């Protein structure tokens, strides 16, 4: 596996608008799309406020929210603005999240022309009833069509998002969805377990989920089945919820979050990280717009990470990835020799088949990934 990465910063844009709120989502978004132009203007002000502090990016990620609510001309203008403010490398990965209901083939072609070279389509399920349950505004037919149209528009780096362990979902239902996804040959698959968060409509409806037939045992089966099925189909399970058709197809942008590469987040509620400092923007579009009309960075909070905090993050993030933790780099960056401090424990894990120690790395196995949070307790 290639570990010699360049650690060039990534740029995240949080587009905080949705036409409607999905039943499981607790990310920040609003539905007043009339404010999109003001938002895009504020965004360019915000970008300018970071010029100098950040100069070069090799990934751009348009997330949200629902960035596919932007007209292709608006995306084009946004990317032009970003290129004018920062250096976006020629080979940069430029990802945009798409809702299958939003775009025509012409729109997709225009996005491709504007420079977007990777799309992540929020399919979530190929089952209409499940889509309704989740409060998605698209159906199975639109999902299949969006994938087809994106390919026809020229995109070859297409990722699909799917959600499993839905209320009353059986393992067979899920396996069928996976087979369907595999048949479409996407370059990338993100398969998330549904988390019932208390502040979401689904969370309120199902509580902790026992009544909907969910359990930790079942969650594990879903997880193991997903990993096994997709790996057998040739995908690499490179992070807890992420699968790529070859490491070249892994999300370069998301990997930065997991290995302490710096990133700049623009837009409400976006998070940024630079070396030892992390800060986050206000989770309010109004507040965000007000701050930027005063040419003030809309930062809500920040933290300076102590080395033990960085070490903790590198540990739990590293144990979520197939690449695992580079033990030498870990000592160098965080001053802790994991093997020496926890030899007994790590050997025990190895004996239990939770991790493998090889090539100077400690890597979680499939079973290990399923309990990565508990592994990070050393």
């Amino acid at each position: 596996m290639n570990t010699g990465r360049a650690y060039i910063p990534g740029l995240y844009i949080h587009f905080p608008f949705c036409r409607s709120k999905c039943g499981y989502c607790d990310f920040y978004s609003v539905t007043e799309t009339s404010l999109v132009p003001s938002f895009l203007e504020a965004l360019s002000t915000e970008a300018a406020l970071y010029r100098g502090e950040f100069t070069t990016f090799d990934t751009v990620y348009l997330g949200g929210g629902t960035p596919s609510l932007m007209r292709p001309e608006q995306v084009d203008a946004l990317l032009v603005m970003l290129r004018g403010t920062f250096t976006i490398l020629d080979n940069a990965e430029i990802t945009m999240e798409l809702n299958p209901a939003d775009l025509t083939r012409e729109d997709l072609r225009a996005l491709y022309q504007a420079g977007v070279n990777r799309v992540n389509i929020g399919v979530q399920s190929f089952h209409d009833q499940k889509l309704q349950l989740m409060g998605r505004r698209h159906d199975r037919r639109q999902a299949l069509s969006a994938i087809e149209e994106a390919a026809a528009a020229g995109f070859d780096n297409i990722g699909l998002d799917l959600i499993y362990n839905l209320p009353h979902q059986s393992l067979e239902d899920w396996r069928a969805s996976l087979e369907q996804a595999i048949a479409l040959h996407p370059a990338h698959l993100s398969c998330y377990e549904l988390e019932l968060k208390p502040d979401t409509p689904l969370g309120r409806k199902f509580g902790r989920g026992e009544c909907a037939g969910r359990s930790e045992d079942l969650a594990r089966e879903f997880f193991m089945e997903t990993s096994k099925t997709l790996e057998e189909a040739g995908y690499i399970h490179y992070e807890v919820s992420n699968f790529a058709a070859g490491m070249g197809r892994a999300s370069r942008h998301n990997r930065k979050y997991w290995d302490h590469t710096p990133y700049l987040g623009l837009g409400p509620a976006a998070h940024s990280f630079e070396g030892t400092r992390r800060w986050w923007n206000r989770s309010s579009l109004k507040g965000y717009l007000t701050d930027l009309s005063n040419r003030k960075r809309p930062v809500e909070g920040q933290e300076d990470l102590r080395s033990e905090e960085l070490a903790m993050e590198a540990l739990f993030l590293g144990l979520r990835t197939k690449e695992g933790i580079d033990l030498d780099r870990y000592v160098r960056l965080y001053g802790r020799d994991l093997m020496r401090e926890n030899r007994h424990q790590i050997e025990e894990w190895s004996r239990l088949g939770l991790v493998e120690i090889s090539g100077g790395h400690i890597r979680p196995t499939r079973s290990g990934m399923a309990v990565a949070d508990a592994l990070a307790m050393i």
Partner: protein
Amino acid sequence: MQNIRNFSIIAHIDHGKSTLADRLIMKTGVCDQRTYKDQMLDSMDIERERGITIKSQAISLPYTASDGETYTLNLIDTPGHVDFSYEVSRSLASCEGVLLLIDATQGVQAQTLANLYLAMEHDLEIIPVINKIDLPAADVERVLEQIDSELGLDPATHLACSAKEGTGVDEILEAIVRRIPPPKGEATKPLAALIFDAYYDAYRGTVINCRVFDGEVKAGDTIRFMSNGSIYRVEEVGRFLLDRQKRDTLSAGEVGYIIAGIKTVSSVSIGDTITLDDRPCAQPLPGFKKVKPVVFASIYPIASDDYEDLSDALEKYKLNDAAFIYEKDSSAALGQGFRCGFLGLLHLDIVQERLEREYGLNIILSVPSVRYRFTLKDGTELHVDNPAHYPNPMNIIKSEEPYIRASMMLPDKYLGAVMTLCIDRRGVNSNMRYPSPGRVELTYEMPLSEVIFDFYDKFKSVTQGYGSFDYDLIDYRTSNLVLLDILVNGEKVDALSQIVHRDRARARGVQACERLKDEIPRQMYKIAIQGAIGGEIISRSTISAFRKDVTAKCYGGDITRKRKLLEKQKEGKKRMKMVGSVSIPQSAFLAVLKSDKDS
């Protein structure tokens, strides 16, 4: 002496004792609003949080009455838990009267009665005071009826107040002066002073709180403790207002403090009589009892590096808690630690909490035990308060355990439930008395081991808080005892062992396994918990391994929130002790004794 009044306030929990005490303090001008600290008399954090008084304290209030005379009103506060009932009795022995405080919304409650009986035992003047009359739910008429029928007091003698609002407080002060008799005693007789409390002051050593019955004491005197004959030279005497106020003498009838270069509070016994070495009184004051610990448990540091810190902390803690005893101990499972003795489980709780809070230690306590007595084949008699020292069963010819006499007072409608509870706890020789219609006084003889753990909680719950309970140790009785061991993943954890009655062993084993299953968090592998007697497995439970605990999403760059969550979990894990390859939380060691989940 005619102008001294010594009194206590006694009440059921939450009937407003501390609020009234604060009012009296403010009204008499000892402290103003500015220096007023919420609930002055309960000065320890733990006391304030739990709403109970642990230590007795005393304060002297100057008061000019309507007759124009100035009086000194000595308010002696009392602890409010059965673990400390001896301290309460010594505080009351130092008074001539009490304010019996009753909540106007709740009426007469268990502790109202228990406290009334205590006060009557000491022949004290009792002034019933109905508190919280400002509340909409106040029902003074009903309380007056209860004062008559349940307490057997003349309702015409009552006072009414709202300690919170400050109404009726003047009348209370006047009643203290007019109705509570002045102390008797003669200043010219040999000194006889009763110790009702002692605490440690970092600069002055032990400060004794006492009530002088006869004679007088002053700086320079040589005093003698009558229980052990030890002798000290008095450095200072005085009384408490908000702080210590030095005086020339303390004499008959007065309440105050003595400082005499005494290094630890352990050298002082509550209830002991102080006299003068060169002119001793003929008899000590009645009622002295050496308080002995009845519950034993070992304390271990969670990180073995903290052993020295724990040792220092215990040494310092001991300075201020005479009832607490400790000695070195070691466990195969938990390493080096200390064996400690406590007055009861509340006392144990308090010690544990103070060690953690005031000394910043992470500690773990083994399963508490009482002190058993074994007679061996070679004739030796062995006292065992630590199950790890249980003798080889082949050598035992007689096993005995301590018994108590429990006295309970309750409304008769709970009688059946309480008797069932007592029989379940191996109670024998019951006795019953009806002091007033509808009220039962019930006594039982029971093994101490059945009472100290959760009996009190159970009792309170079956009597819905209307029962009061007290106990006295009576003797040791022959009992069929066995050692119940707990194995975690096949490894014996000595700190989880308990000595139990053979008939109860199986049930206890099942209970322990079930409780541990709830208390020990899941880990990477399956954990087997077994109960065993002499190698025979009698119960088992299994804790399944983690299945999936990893969160699905960890991007959008919000790593901070996730890290904080994990840090919190990790912090919790620090409070667990690794035993072999299993982390056992502190709570597990006490939980094995609890009979079910809700207690």
